[in-house]
């Protein structure tokens, strides 16, 4: 009897259209971001996602001012930021982190300036925190298109991107156009950052494009598997996170990222090869062998 009540309680979120929408949109975005995270964290570009998310703010503000779809503005500033970072990096001896910091703070400041000059034009709150529970149907369409296209392109190019990021000179020797591949990658990253903005907000985009890849990295030495694990983690945590946020009445982004971090910690300690506990055990076995 009480079990029946509990069960129906648990199924409540599925009876609301907006909750269903929030769950599958989050899962989609979480999956694509996790796909990209597999590459980002390997190249030491983890902060790139964060930087792009902040750089997008002026584009979003401009889109509101001109009444254009918000994804369009965000997308173009995203590309601009990525191109700006490449430009400064190639033409100076600054390290990657300094370049990223320079470009993204400049654009973020510009965005805040625009938002303060035209106060009604943009709700900074929405950009920074995201609001998947109140996402409009138009935005759902945008996010779905972005995610589907990105997923498709990544499925076609994942091996070429792997070679490019692992060994660029070899990639060129087998005739790959590494510059074009990188442009495609950063374009997708900008697009997915825009999508993630709506679900978890600018502050937490970084988690979506780092944590699943980092967790998967602890679990495997094969890149193909790493991608599969990472995407699975992204999809499940985002779906479940959106679901739980109904009961907690809390920010969806916060719940999703908390779940991802919990799984990361589990992998950090218990991963069979690269986990802390496994490493300690091997050390102990080795010392035992020496002493006995």
């Amino acid at each position: 009897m009480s079990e029946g009540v509990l069960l129906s309680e648990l199924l409540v979120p599925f009876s609301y259209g907006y909750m269903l929408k929030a769950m599958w949109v989050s899962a989609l975005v979480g999956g694509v971001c996790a796909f990209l995270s597999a590459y980002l964290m390997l190249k030491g570009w983890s902060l790139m996602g964060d930087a792009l998310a902040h750089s997008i703010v002026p584009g979003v503000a401009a889109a509101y001012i001109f009444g254009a779809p918000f994804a369009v503005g965000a997308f173009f500033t995203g590309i601009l930021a990525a191109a700006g970072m490449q430009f400064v990096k190639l033409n100076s001896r600054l390290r990657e982190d300094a370049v990223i910091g320079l470009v993204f703070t400049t654009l973020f400041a510009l965005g805040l300036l625009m938002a303060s000059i035209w106060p009604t034009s943009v709700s900074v709150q929405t950009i920074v925190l995201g609001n998947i529970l109140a996402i409009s149907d138009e935005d759902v369409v945008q996010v779905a298109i972005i995610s589907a296209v990105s997923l498709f392109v990544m499925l076609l190019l994942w091996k070429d991107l792997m070679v490019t990021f692992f060994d660029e000179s070899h990639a060129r020797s087998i005739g790959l156009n590494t510059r074009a591949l990188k442009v495609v990658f950063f374009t997708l990253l900008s697009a997915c950052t825009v999508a993630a903005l709506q679900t978890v907000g600018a502050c937490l985009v970084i988690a979506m494009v780092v944590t699943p890849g980092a967790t998967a990295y602890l679990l495997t030495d094969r890149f193909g598997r790493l991608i599969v694990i990472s995407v699975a983690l992204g999809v499940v945590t985002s779906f479940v996170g959106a679901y739980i946020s109904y009961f907690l009445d809390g920010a969806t982004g916060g719940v999703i990222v908390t779940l991802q971090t919990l799984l990361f910690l589990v992998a950090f300690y218990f991963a069979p090869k690269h986990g802390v506990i496994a490493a300690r055990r091997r050390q102990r076995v080795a010392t035992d062998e020496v002493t006995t």
Partner: protein
Amino acid sequence: MTALTQIARAPERTTTPGASISLHHLTVTYPNGFTAVRDASFELDPGTICALVGVNGSGKSTIFKSIMGFVQPSSGEVKLCGLPVEDALKKNVVAYVPQSEDVDWNFPVLVETVVMMGRYGHMNFLRMPSRADRYKVDEALERVGMSAYRKRQIGELSGGQKKRIFLARSLAQEGRIILLDEPFTGIDVKTETAIVGLLRELRAAGHLILVSTHNLGSVPEFCDQVVLINRTVLAAGPTAEVFTQGNLERAFGGVLRNFQLGGPALHQDDDARRITVLTDDERPLVFYGDGDSQRSDKSGA
């Protein structure tokens, strides 16, 4: 390692027509204004092993990089198989093993995956390996004696083992032109001998191999052509003509350790012949007499 040279292989292509490298008045200036190579020209034909020899900083790696199109010539041009570099690379004709691999050793790829990357240029755009591709990878790993390590993560290898993996990748790639930038540094003598055997097989199959090295002693052993450089081409041509004491002293200046043993130091009698030992690295080069006839020290240093 014995597996390396003993594998019986079906001869794939007896000749690979048109594998050629030609440098035409190549000048390379780095962005800081330093001209590393000035007005360098040479031509190489298929079925050749050519040694690129010179002191540190003489521009060997720079020449490799310009053959790969990684640095742009400020004047002059490079042609591969008669094609401009960009076009040749698209046709997957060149395999390149750099002096030091600029890769992330923590990257989650297995040894066999790295070697499989050599096959990507032969696959369709989805890069799905066929049975033939897998076979070529097995074979390449076997030829460098690294089959036992195929399931290791790429960082879990020693320096010399890593070199062998990248060599295996270039074998799997089956480029008609193979560029090896100092493949013998940090390699033990046994592996070196095995690699030399491998290069001879490749030459017999019609490949063109350009290899830079500081092991002067082994050059006459397996290279039929030599290019001596010091920021420009000092001499280029068949080993017997170019790899002479006079040319080497010109290329290396005072850098070479040069021992001359003659007269009473060597013999009690009044034999006037001399032995000259030139050494840049591990393997010394020995000249008997006045430098016109040469033979290398086969036993290593």
